[in-house]
């Protein structure tokens, strides 16, 4: 029903229309693609940036961690040093307190009894047969040298400024008088203290030579009260 010329023209026109539509469609599709690609690229870039940022942050944190660790180590060392020195100080203090008699002391120790000789031969000086204050002094010195922690004579603590004085037949330890027999107690390592006293040519030999009766006895438990106040 259509004329031939009409068909020809319409066909050509349809062709043109198809061509134009295709071009438009292609362009639009490409534009969409580009946009998507751009989006993808942008996304990738963003992710990469965030990864980099994260890495940088990690590095920073790691550095911080390292420095903090170093600080902690320094502090630990410092504290350890302090502990050692303070421990030493406390130990020293305790030892010194024991020596000065500020604290009660108990523990294993030794007991040395010095007594006048019971038998004084005729014609000899009885003065040579009694215990003198220097004997006691020698024993005390020896015990102190042998690391005794605390020493007492007849129950009186020896402190840092004690004195032992001869007043005739009795002696005075600080302000208390006592007579023979003199019991010298010392807290410390009993073996060591005894060994110190019994060295050949040592204090014991000397005392025996000077006619003093010496008895040493190890004790499991020696107790000494604290000296109250400053002793004169």
């Amino acid at each position, binding site marked *: 029903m*259509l*004329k031939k*010329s*009409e*068909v*020809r*023209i*319409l*066909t*050509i*026109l*349809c*062709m*043109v*229309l*198809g*061509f*134009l*539509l*295709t*071009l*438009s469609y*292609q*362009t639009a599709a*490409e*534009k969409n693609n580009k946009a998507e690609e751009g989006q993808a690229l942008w996304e990738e870039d963003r992710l990469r940036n965030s990864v980099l940022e994260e890495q940088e942050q990690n590095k920073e944190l790691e550095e911080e961690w390292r420095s903090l660790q170093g600080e902690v180590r320094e502090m630990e060392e410092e504290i350890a040093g302090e502990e050692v020195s303070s421990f030493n100080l406390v130990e020293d203090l305790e030892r010194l307190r024991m020596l000065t008699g500020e604290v009660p002391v108990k523990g294993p120790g030794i007991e040395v009894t010095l007594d006048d000789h019971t038998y004084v031969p005729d014609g000899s000086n009885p003065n040579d047969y009694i215990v003198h204050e220097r004997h006691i002094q020698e024993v005390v010195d020896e015990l102190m040298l042998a690391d005794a922690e605390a020493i007492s004579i007849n129950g009186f603590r020896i402190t840092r400024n004690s004195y032992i004085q001869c007043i005739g037949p009795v002696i005075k330890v600080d302000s208390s008088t006592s007579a023979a027999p003199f019991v010298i107690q010392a807290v410390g390592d009993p073996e060591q203290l005894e060994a110190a006293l019994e060295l050949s040519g040592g204090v014991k030999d000397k005392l025996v030579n000077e006619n003093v009766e010496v008895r040493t006895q190890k004790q499991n438990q020696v107790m000494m009260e604290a000296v109250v106040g400053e002793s004169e």
Partner: protein
Amino acid sequence: MWLPVVGVFLGVVIGLLTGVHIPAGYSLYFTIAILAVLDTLVGGCKASLEKKFEDSLFLSGLVINLGFALSLAFLGNQLGVDLYLAAVFAFGVRLFRNIAIMRRELLRRWKIK
């Protein structure tokens, strides 16, 4: 009878094969061109249904309409005013009117049969 349909396919194939891309700035002109061609096609169909089809009228209508619409769009683009809307509007209105006329004509014929 089926030649126009074949023509459409042929055009699509040519378009795909050439792979020409329209620069972004010219997409507007392509819109106008597509509208103009569509309008002319529908107008031709209508004319041939009414037995008033005339080659010279058809072709001159296509060329003049297309040229005017394109120049309007170009002018609008230069002035920064959307003058191409006038062409789009005119083509759209004519498209729908022609389609309506064709529909009535075809319905009338179908009823007569």
